[in-house]
């Protein structure tokens, strides 16, 4: 029997059997305690007092705080709006991945609708940007961060391959500088230095500054991914485009870039997931994203000490969405 059933798979040789037994022992040692904590001894409802009396996890805390964690300080009565905004975003993303088309128009329409849903006006109660928070803010930072970084990354990637030395030097210098420093330092630069660099009388709010920092940071990594894709294009493609009488720009737009972007898709997926996770760093400069909202929920003096539950809840949201992103990337790669 190929595979050999469970005996052949786990106990094929003394070595395999030892390894299996050690691993099974490890599981037997850790898993029951973990399950008891997370499920059997857990409290699923009740107040903080009941939770503190229990030995297991306090999922009642998540039940009490999930709105704060998901939506931040957004007015409770209006939270259907960010929920709907996220639903629209998920729908257009799913449609684009499913049909393997960019759907530019649908994206633009959804982003405009989402902006209206979040900000209000024209029939909806206005909600100031400072009240936006939670998962919608995290998704907003991710989507606009990637979309804003893309054109800059394209310019940088082409610039690094330019025959003109000044262009090459500027593009290379920018990419290597940004890739050499941590995102935290770029966010600090945005929160402390950007206000100094603008002329008197002009200001950017905290969200715009963090968004700009994210765009500048992601663009450097995205540029390297696109450059990798450009390098994978054989010279014959350039020559063939020239032989067809295409000018340099049309050759780039219709022949080279579509192939290069396809080749760099796995790297771009990785960067998209990285950007989604990296948005959590805006906590450090005080924006109210999913990570900050989770910390805020933990700060309630009536419900102190349920950190593990809150982090596991927020972590599973990040985990599921990251996993969905990687799945989407894989589906786009296997374009038939």
């Amino acid at each position, binding site marked *: 029997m190929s595979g050999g059933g469970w005996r052949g798979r786990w106990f094929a040789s003394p070595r395999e059997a030892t390894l299996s037994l050690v691993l099974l022992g490890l599981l037997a040692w850790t898993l029951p305690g973990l399950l008891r904590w997370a499920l059997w001894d857990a409290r699923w409802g009740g107040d903080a007092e009941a939770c503190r009396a229990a030995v297991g996890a306090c999922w009642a805390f998540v039940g009490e705080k999930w709105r704060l964690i998901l939506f931040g300080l957004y007015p409770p009565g209006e939270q259907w709006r960010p929920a709907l905004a996220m639903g629209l975003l998920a729908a257009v993303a799913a449609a684009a991945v499913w049909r393997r088309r960019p759907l530019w128009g649908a994206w633009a329409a959804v982003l405009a609708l989402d902006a209206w849903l979040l900000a209000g006006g024209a029939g909806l109660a206005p909600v100031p940007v400072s009240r936006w928070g939670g998962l919608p803010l995290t998704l907003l930072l991710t989507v606009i961060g990637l979309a804003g970084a893309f054109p800059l990354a394209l310019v940088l990637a082409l610039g690094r391959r330019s025959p003109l030395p000044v262009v090459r030097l500027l593009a290379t210098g920018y990419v290597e500088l940004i890739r050499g420093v941590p995102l*935290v330092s770029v966010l600090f630069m945005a929160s402390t230095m950007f206000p100094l660099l603008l002329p008197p009388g002009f200001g950017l709010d905290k969200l715009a500054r963090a968004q700009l920092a994210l765009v500048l940071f992601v663009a450097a990594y995205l540029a390297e991914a696109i450059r990798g894709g450009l390098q994978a294009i054989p010279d014959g493609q350039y020559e063939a485009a020239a032989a067809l009488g295409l000018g340099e720009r049309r050759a780039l737009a219709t022949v080279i870039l579509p192939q290069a972007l396809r080749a760099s898709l796995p790297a771009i997926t990785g960067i998209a997931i990285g950007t989604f996770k990296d948005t959590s760093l805006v*906590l450090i400069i005080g924006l109210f994203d999913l990570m900050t909202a989770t910390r805020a929920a933990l700060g309630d003096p009536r419900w102190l000490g349920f950190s593990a539950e809150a982090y596991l809840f927020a972590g599973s949201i990040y985990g599921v969405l990251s996993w969905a992103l990687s799945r989407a990337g894989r589906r786009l790669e296997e374009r038939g």
Partner: protein
Amino acid sequence: MSACVRQALLLALVLGGLAWFGHNAALKLAEQGVSGGFAFLGREAGFAIAESPLAYGPGDSYLRALAVGLLNTLKVAAPALLGATLLGTLVGIGLRARNRLAARLARAYVEALRNVPLLLQLFLWYALLTEALPPPRQAWQPLPGVFLSGRGLFLPAPGAHPAWAAAGWGLLAGLAAALPAGRWRRGRRGRGVAMVALVLAPPLAAWLAAGGLGAWTLPALSGFNFVGGLVLSPEFAALGLGLTLYSASYIAEIVRAGLDAVPAGQREAAAALGLKPGQALRLVVLPQALRVIVPPLAGQYLSLVKNSSLAVAIGYPDLVSVANTAINQTGHAIEGVAIIMAAYLSVSLAVAALMEVYNRRVALRGQA
């Protein structure tokens, strides 16, 4: 328009933009009464730093405070690099293990850790280390002299004792003995073990003879906390643990990709030569996989060093955290950010250069 003119225009545009930013910054700083420049580095910092490899007090200069921050960054990054490499290699081999249970567990580990932000993981480890562990009075004692409590991990530290000097002399003697013995048993089995034993036995014997077992200072409970011994703060432990576990999940995928890049024929050939699976992995597969592994591994090492800057979120006094305090106190934002960036760029370049040297050693040579 010729290429030269276009490039000159682009350069003028970039430099002009930078000059405009500089002009705006100068105006605003003058308004706030802050004078630019790095002279503030010599002034008294006036803040305490919780843990410091250097002697440091609030009376010391900003420069010294930043040096402490940089050393703290290196102090947490170095062991995390080592730990992540070992764990990542193990999990990476596990991902391709024939044992299904091992492969499943390795896959679960990678997916669970790679898909969740490092910052969240750091907060979780920090919460577990500070909230779930008992207070010092009820500290766990897994080994004699080792205490685990919500205030940190307390270990025995090498104390002032002649045994350490004896061990040092013993090590010199062992090396001196090993050098002429280097040619002995060349190419024979067990040579490596014999050489290691030759180098390590004299210092161990000398250390034991001089009473090395008593050469430790043990942590002891005094009031509400431990004194003496070696202390690993919860901040350090959470950051080190988080960086290690998170980076290991990326390194595991890099190792797996390296193993996949070695053709199956190589394993089969090794088996045909009579090598056992472990020997085949060590002598045939890994050396070839390293050529694929090392370049992305270098990138992962750089990420780890940069990720250590998340220390600021859990209160470990790394470079970014110290520089942030300095910026808030002095208003020298541009200089502070420039110092952070210069420091990370130097560390990144150093790590990249070291990895490049190693890469040359493992790269394929003399390809016909």
